[in-house]
Each structure stands twice: as structure tokens, then as C-alpha cells.
């Protein structure tokens, strides 16, 4: 069984789960368990050391076999993200940091410039940097050069459920990348996650689609199965699409038989 490698970490599951938007932390924990995810992201702003009932970090860290990846959601500049990453590492002990910088809290689109700056600094400080980025092939390569552990381009806007709206750019990023490409944001259904994996993604990150499903643990499981199937298919080699019919009167008959 091949695994996902991020830094010195190895994961057999290729589904990363987000932990926001759930109706309760108990439902969220059930979904995490059902997903079989081994890497789970949690926002620093949802760490609450003063009020256990409101805290997402402590109950997540109690699940065996889970590595936590704090994220900087809420940061609007590189400086804030760097500060948040350092605090997250102190509090969680995890070397992973998902760099999320959205200067506009409305549409939550990642700021490429600030994300690049923060990622460069954090990679130098030894973090396993997982930047959430627009589906920009050049930025992805720049972040790889800066020492990131992966790149996490968006499939579509966070919480939009628009699926792989950026598919063409994602194909280029995947083709050119030497680090795992993890599609983050926009996935609505397991079939879209499977498609991302068939395209060659290293993993996918899902949050809203599970959190707001009628039965989040069951949906988490469905995503896990779809991700595994998509990855297996990619490894097995998917047959080429060929919509082309062959002309009955050959166009190249004039060339004569090949010698």
C-alpha cells in the first residue's frame, strides 16, 4: 500500500478533514473517526484553553493515530500568519501548519503574496508548511522552491460546493509538482473527491461537505471511500478518453503503405 509522504510523516489515508462548521464537537469527532483521516486541520482561533466545552484542540488530540495540522484561518497578513503559526506550534507540538491568509473575511480567497512571504519564513523555521493557495501553477512552483511540504490549491471558493472549477489549472499544477498537491476547498460530493484523486492529487481536504451533510460521519466515510477509489484508479492507469472516430475513407491513404 503506497502512502502519502509529508516531511518525515507517512499517512495511509489521503483524506484530510477540516473541523469547522459542525453542529457540535461530538458530531465532528465522530466524523473524524469515521473518515479514517490521520491528518486533521484545526484553526488556532478555535483552540480555547479556558473553556473546555468550546475547545476543538484537546478532544481532537485525544483521538489515537491523528496528527493535527493547525491552520491560520483568520490571519490577513503574513506577519499575523507567522505569529499564529509559532503560537500553534507551541500549543499543539505539531510541526504542520496550514497557512491560510485571507485579507477579506467575506470571500475567504487566499492572498498569494502574503501566503508566499509567510510560507518562506515558516519553511526556514522548520515547519511543515501546507499553504492554501489559488490554483496558480507558477505560485505552486515558487512555494515548492521555498520549501513547502505540499501545496493546497482550491478547487473552488471555500464553502461554495462548486467542485473542481479550477480543474485545468490543477492539472498543470499536478503535472509539474514534485511535492504532493492537495485540493482544498470547494468539494461538494465524494465523486468530486474521487475525480481530484484520479487527476493525481496526493490528497484532498474536505470540511463543509461533511460538516453540513445530513449525517456527517456517514458522509466522512463516503469521502474516505471515494478518495481511496480515486487514488487506486490513478495508480492503476486510467484509459485515455478518445472521442475521435476514425474516418472510413482514410485521410492519409495518399501516403501509401508504411515501409
Amino acid at each position, binding site marked *: 500500500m503506497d502512502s502519502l509522504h509529508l516531511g518525515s510523516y507517512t499517512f495511509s489515508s489521503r483524506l484530510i478533514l477540516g473541523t*469547522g*462548521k*459542525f*453542529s*457540535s*464537537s461530538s458530531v465532528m469527532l465522530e466524523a473524524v473517526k469515521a473518515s479514517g483521516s490521520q491528518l486533521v486541520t484545526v484553526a*488556532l*482561533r*478555535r*483552540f*480555547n*484553553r*479556558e*473553556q473546555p*466545552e*468550546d475547545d476543538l484542540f484537546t478532544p481532537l488530540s485525544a483521538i489515537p493515530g491523528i496528527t493535527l495540522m493547525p491552520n*491560520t484561518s*483568520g*490571519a*490577513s*497578513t*503574513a*506577519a*499575523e500568519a*507567522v*505569529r*499564529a503559526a*509559532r*503560537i500553534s506550534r*507551541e*500549543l499543539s507540538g505539531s510541526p504542520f501548519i496550514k497557512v491560510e491568509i485571507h*485579507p*477579506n*473575511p*467575506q*470571500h*475567504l480567497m487566499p492572498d498569494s503574496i*502574503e501566503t508566499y*512571504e509567510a510560507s518562506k*519564513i515558516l519553511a526556514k523555521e522548520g515547519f511543515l508548511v501546507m499553504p492554501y493557495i489559488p490554483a496558480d501553477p507558477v505560485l505552486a512552483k515558487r512555494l515548492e522552491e521555498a520549501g513547502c511540504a505540499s501545496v493546497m490549491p482550491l478547487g473552488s471558493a471555500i*464553502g*461554495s*460546493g462548486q467542485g473542481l472549477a479550477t480543474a485545468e489549472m490543477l492539472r498543470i499544477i499536478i503535472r509539474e509538482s514534485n511535492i504532493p498537491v492537495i485540493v482544498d476547498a470547494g468539494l461538494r460530493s465524494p465523486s468530486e473527491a474521487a475525480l481530484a484523486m484520479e487527476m493525481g492529487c496526493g490528497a484532498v481536504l474536505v470540511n*463543509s461537505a461533511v*460538516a*453540513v451533510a445530513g449525517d456527517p460521519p456517514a458522509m466522512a466515510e463516503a469521502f474516505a471511500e471515494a478518495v481511496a477509489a480515486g487514488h487506486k484508479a490513478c495508480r492503476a492507469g486510467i484509459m485515455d478518453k478518445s472521442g475521435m472516430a476514425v474516418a472510413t475513407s482514410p485521410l492519409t491513404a495518399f501516403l501509401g503503405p508504411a515501409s
Partner: protein
Amino acid sequence: MNTLLPEWLNPAADEARIREMLSPDSRWTLEHLAAQSRAITLRRFGRTMTLYAPLYLSNHCSSGCAYCGFASDRTTPRRRLEQEEIRKELAAMKRLGISDVLLLTGERTKAADFDYLRTSVATAAADMQRVTVEAFPMSVAEYRELAEAGCTGITIYQETYDRARYGELHRWGPKKEFLERLDTPSRALEGGIKTAGLGVLLGLADPQEDAIMLYRHLRHLGKTYWRAGLSVSFPRIRPQTGSYQPPFTVSDHLLARMIFAFRIALPDVELVLSTRESPAFRDGMAGLGITRMSIASRTTVGGYTDPESGDQGQFDIFDDRSVEAFCKALREKNIEPVFKNWAHAYNGPSSPETDERAPENVNTWN
């Protein structure tokens, strides 16, 4: 003095839909709007509700708003909290689980001036995760100082966009200046405040017209200050000292319609509902569009440490349920109450140009 209204308050090309949604006799039934609003809220914000509570720092005031219990001609005893008292109030709020506080004052007075407010923000930011302010209009430079002291958001209501009504209601004091107030959110965002909360006091003027103007204001701010976080509140006039009778009544149906229309027209903005509203209305609206609610509120100065304090608040609270009771009601609706949805690391002015790229101090409290 230029007394012309700014151009962005003119009718915009993209407002036909919200105007239609706001009208009770349109083809958009309330049920239709509710279903769309709920779906958008669920996708964008999930099954959560962010909670905050107000802290009245001072009820000194220099303005004569006809509808307000703190207007300067009321006989309400005046008081401001000293820093030690603020710390005590914050401690009492923290015991309730609150980590997101809205600091309030009246219009600028000697008793509660800018220095007092800035000091109070710093006091609150040392204790609370998120500090926002609803006080008096300030200059860009003052807003920057406030942001540096740890204030991440301001709330400033125009109260009404009907200029003639505005003139009648704001009888004296600095708040009399309609255009000055209109420009305040812009100055705050320019000064590096990250979020601006807008609203009209429903009942002062034609509610639908006010809602349209509010929508124009929000669109203008969103396009001009692209980093800005925006929120909208929907306060209806509540009984208060001075027993002002509002000329317009805003029914539960109309208020619900407004909230749904704003959610659909502005899918990403925070929509806020306070304890002015009844428990039944608040519970009903949770999950249908509202994403931020106040809890366990006291609208008196010093109300958290001395709940029996005899002085009268700015307005009467309708939803006076305890934190536990309110959270239980949310959970029964499958919505998670979220007390902490912010981190100290994200405090500070919004524009990155002035930021240092690699801060050295790691030991900031989360």
C-alpha cells in the same frame, strides 16, 4: 460645507433584486426567501453561531437622540467604569465563557473621551480574544491608534439614511452631522480597523428605504475597502427611558424578510441579532441567516458585576436567558455556539504595508 449626498447613495444597477425581495407583496414569498437564505448560510457558515456580549463602559453622552435612553437630556444617572472596574466586569463576563466583547460608550464627552476609550480597549484586549467598539465617530489617526491598542472592529449605525428624519431625531450634539456620521465607517477602515458593523435603527423611518440605502453603503464600503469585513445588525426600537414612540412598526415578518434578503444579496457578510429580540424570534432565526448573536447581555454600566444595579439601560433586553439556557436552545437546533472564534495573533491594523514581515515576539498569548 458640502452638503450633497455622496454619489454612491444613488440607486445602483444591481439593487433591483434586493428591492424586490424586501417588498412583502413581491413574488418572493417569505418561505421561499427563508429556504434560500438557510441554504446559503449553511454552505458559507456551517452549523455554528458566533457569540459576543456588550460591555457598557460609560453612559455619558453629548448628543440628543430623541429615541435613546442615554441622550444628554435624560435624568439617567451618569457613570463611567474605571479600568479596575472594567477588569472586574470582564472577569465576570469571562466566567460566563465570553471571549468576544463589544465596548460601548455614548457620543464623545470629557468623561469618556478618546484616551479613555483607547485605554479601555487595551485593558479589554489583554483579557479578551476579540475586542470591538461601538462608540463615537473618530478620525483616521484615532482609529489607527485604536487598532494598535487591539480593537479589530467597530460598529457604527447610521440609525436612518433619511436625511430629513435624521435631522429631526438628532436634536443636538456631534451626532447631528449626517454626512460626518455617514463617512465614519470609511475612516475606520482607512485607519486599519478590520471590520465595520452597520445598521439602521428600524422604526425611525421607512424600513425598506433605509434597508436599500444600507445595502448601497455596504456595497460602497466593500468595493472601496476590499479588505474590510462587514457585518449588518437589525436593531428594532425597543422600549427605553424617554418612551419614544417610533413612527414605523417593523413586524417580525418584515424583519425576517429583511434578514433573508440581506443574506441572499450579500452571502458572505456577518448578520447580527441582539438580545433586543425575543427568545422565540432569535431561536427561529438561528440557522436561517443570522451568524452572530449577543448573549447574556447587560445594557447598564456595571451590569455584569452588579446585575441588580438600579440604573436603567440603553434599551430593554427581551432575551434575558442565561448563557446555558441560550446555548441549550441553539444545540437543540443542531447549531454549535462558538465562544472563541478569534486569536490574539490576528489583532492589529489591517493593511500589510506597515507590518513587519517577521515578528520576533513568540510569547504572545493565544
